[in-house]
């Protein structure tokens, strides 16, 4: 499968477009923020750094479901400058 968000990678970018949906957006009072990032981090490091900013980000769960570039990723995945990271509460489509 071709990574569907490959086109999102913008070389030279120094931040990560970070999205919060539904319950998380309500929890944080914000739907989107650009997080400065100079070098790749593991997903866990990225989430940890975000939560370490304190209110309201420390309201996020420690181990949330996350999509990187519009693909659900596993623990240990990498977040790079230019990526799009989305925090996904439990889904309820259908």
């Amino acid at each position, binding site marked *: *499968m071709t990574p*569907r968000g490959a086109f999102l990678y913008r070389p030279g970018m120094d931040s990560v477009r970070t*999205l919060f*949906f*539904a*319950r998380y957006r*309500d929890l944080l009072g914000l739907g989107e923020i650009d997080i400065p990032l100079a070098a790749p981090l593991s997903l866990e490091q990225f989430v940890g750094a975000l939560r370490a900013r304190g209110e309201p980000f420390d309201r996020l769960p420690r181990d949330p*479901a996350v*999509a990187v570039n*519009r*693909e*659900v*990723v*596993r623990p240990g995945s990498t977040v790079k400058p230019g990526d799009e990271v*989305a925090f*996904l*509460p*439990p*889904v*309820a*489509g*259908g």
Partner: protein
Amino acid sequence: MDQATEGMASMIHSRITSSPIDPQAVLSRVGAASDGAVLLFLGVVRDHADARAVDSLEYEAYVEMAEPVLRELAEETAVRLGTDRVAVEHRIGSLAIGEVSVAIAVSSPHRAESYEASRYMIEEIKRRLPIWKREGYVDGSRAWVAGTPVEGP
């Protein structure tokens, strides 16, 4: 995408839409002279959730991701179905009781594959599609539906 995949994909239809879904239009996208079975599933907004009276529903999507995920699910469904006659639409935005939230149409030479593939599609939508649902209750309050942890392919 190679040629074979492109050919296979030709009749597959998938869409996230904020306009009302027309079940007849979704149904009419499937069917072929070799198909003996057609199945249409509609998800509809109910007036109750557990024991609470619901009077409206709001679907929110991560649209840029939901569109390719829904397409992926439709392609997986086509593989199980053994045909490319798959059409799926998922509504987002505010819905009233009785409105269609999701429509899935499939057709195949024999019925077993249609039943199996249709059921697969709706179950996978509930597992993998980045869509959230907020219920509005008759007492004026509202709440996000609990949902299930999202999964990858």
